[in-house]
């Protein structure tokens, strides 16, 4: 257990270091940092002095070490485009993204699991077939197109929901939330449906496949033979055993929520970190890009570690084999 954990931690640290190196290379070699900071009438001497002062003449490993140290302290420099510290920009935008992701993920679980259970228990019914076709559409339709269609139908035609932004937000000091105002809830519905749809179909297919598999197993047959009621077999035995793989795989899918969050935020002009990243890419705002890169890598690595741990806690076979 300890060895497994250490191995995973080492791997995670290594991955973060590789990403940090990529971010550093981008930061250091794309464009001249000095040229970004000086005006036309700065003399050559001043430039050289500045270069020396910034440590740009140090050997590269030293520079990389300094970059990592600064990153660990949350110092990513100033955004070229907005002229504000990158860390503060990210902190401003993070609540919007986290709220959107959680609501979308919750929606996907709340709708996806019941649909999957139904389709798994009654695979021949017409409703199950309808669910399957619906899920294929959910996988085939690109996120951005779903978003646009929702805007077109519910935003433009029916005028029922706002088509961009977060609505009114409440500032809690360290967190600005849109979930305390009616207009905030109104605004989050369309983006959350857009972002959650793919996850929902994914979870539905997963639960359906797992249930189908479990229902064929011996212990379900045995439970039937013992005369246990159908409801208890379905929900006490079958569903409970399918939730383990579902939770872990769904946890891994959080990563793709971040990725598709970029697209969703861009379609709905949702003021989160994904939108910030898209704007940074198109304006080549390198400090923002490299900071985002590191942040996302950190989130992914933590999720993976958590999922690994969860596996370990839930599946006794893994614990046995590692002893």
């Amino acid at each position: 257990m300890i060895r497994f954990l250490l191995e995973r931690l080492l791997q995670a640290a290594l991955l973060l270091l590789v990403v940090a190196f990529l971010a550093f290379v981008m930061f250091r070699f794309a464009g001249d940092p000095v040229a970004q900071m000086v005006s036309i009438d700065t003399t050559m001497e001043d430039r050289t002095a500045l270069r020396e002062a910034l440590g740009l003449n140090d050997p590269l490993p030293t520079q990389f070490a300094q970059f990592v140290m600064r990153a660990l302290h949350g110092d990513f420099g100033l955004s070229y485009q907005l002229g504000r510290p990158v860390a503060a920009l990210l902190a401003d935008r993070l609540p919007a993204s986290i709220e959107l992701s959680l609501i979308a993920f919750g929606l996907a679980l709340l709708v996806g699991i019941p649909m999957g259970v139904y389709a798994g228990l009654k695979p021949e019914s017409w409703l199950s077939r309808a669910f399957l076709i619906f899920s294929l559409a959910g996988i085939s339709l690109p996120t951005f197109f779903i978003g646009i269609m929702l805007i077109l139908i519910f935003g433009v035609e029916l005028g029922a929901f706002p088509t961009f932004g977060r609505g009114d937000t409440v500032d809690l000091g360290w967190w600005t939330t849109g979930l305390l105002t009616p207009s905030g809830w109104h605004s989050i519905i369309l983006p959350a449906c857009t972002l959650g749809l793919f996850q929902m179909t994914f979870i539905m297919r997963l639960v359906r496949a797992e249930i189908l598999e479990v229902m064929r197993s011996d212990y379900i047959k045995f439970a039937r033979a013992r005369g246990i009621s159908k409801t208890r077999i379905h929900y006490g035995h079958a569903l409970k055993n399918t939730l383990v793989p579902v939770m872990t795989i769904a946890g891994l899918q959080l990563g793709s929520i971040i990725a598709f969050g970029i697209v969703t935020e861009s379609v709905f002009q949702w003021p989160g970190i994904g939108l910030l990243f898209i704007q940074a890419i198109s304006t080549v705002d390198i400090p923002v890009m490299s900071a985002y890169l590191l942040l996302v890598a950190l989130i992914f690595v933590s999720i993976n570690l958590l999922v690994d741990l969860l596996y370990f806690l839930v599946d006794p076979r893994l614990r046995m084999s590692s002893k």
Partner: protein
Amino acid sequence: MTPEQRPNLFLRAYDSDAGYKFRRSPLTVLAGLILVLMIGAAMLAPWIAPFDPFDKASIDLFNALIPPAWQSGGDPAFLLGTDDQGRDLFSTILYGTRTSVFVGAISVALAVCAGVTFGLIAGYFGGLVDAVIMRIVDIQMTFPAIMVALLIDGVTRSFMTRDQHSEMAIVVIIIAMALSIWPQVARTVRASTMVEKSREYVLAAQVIGRGSGAILARHILPNVMGPVLVIATINLGVAILGEATLSFLGLGIPAGEPSLGTLIRIGNDFIFSGERWMLIYPGLTLALLVLSVNLLGDWLRDVLDPKLR
């Protein structure tokens, strides 16, 4: 993969099973037909499209924003209407589908080449090579494809000037999509190679002194291609969607060249002003294309590898 290389008994079962499943599923037959029709039309775009969207001389700004032919104000010359620059929408969709299919097919082909090569090497030789390749695969698989593509686009943008980047846009997208798909292929090929390498026919080839390269290419490769075909088909859909998403975000193919993504991007600018056809028809084309690819992928998976479900 020529059928002659398979054991004869297996070949017969395989062939009839596939044929049977194909005939039994009307949805698959429909998807196949639609796909053949769409790809055929896209490949023949220069001959069947009524207008050439790259030919500045044939574009007339007076024809801008004409609705589809069956709506009031439509012009029979422009079947699906025209866009804001007066380009015939039907023609741009044909050319756009061509770009999308081209980008998707090339990136999947590249990913399959890389994935098969590294997967074979990792599975056959094992040891340190295997560990290094699989670690890279593991790391890359934690990042979703679209994220990898976005990052590569961002990185290349920071090293190139704007003009250089627009010129290289298609290449960047292809490389980005290929890079994000190859780990899946490598992982599958490695797993099947590890099974195959202890089979008698490989041992026999080793005994008569064939080199590792020949064994991999001539003996093992044909036997591990089944699942690769499934993954390639499913990822063709992923690659087409990825290109469309990047182009829609304005980070992919430059707006001047039609791809389904850029067409939807342009259409999206007119969402509030009522010219819906510019958004809906490219979008439907994209959805139909990817849906057909996915349906065919599902069918292939059922036929070739029931375990992959």
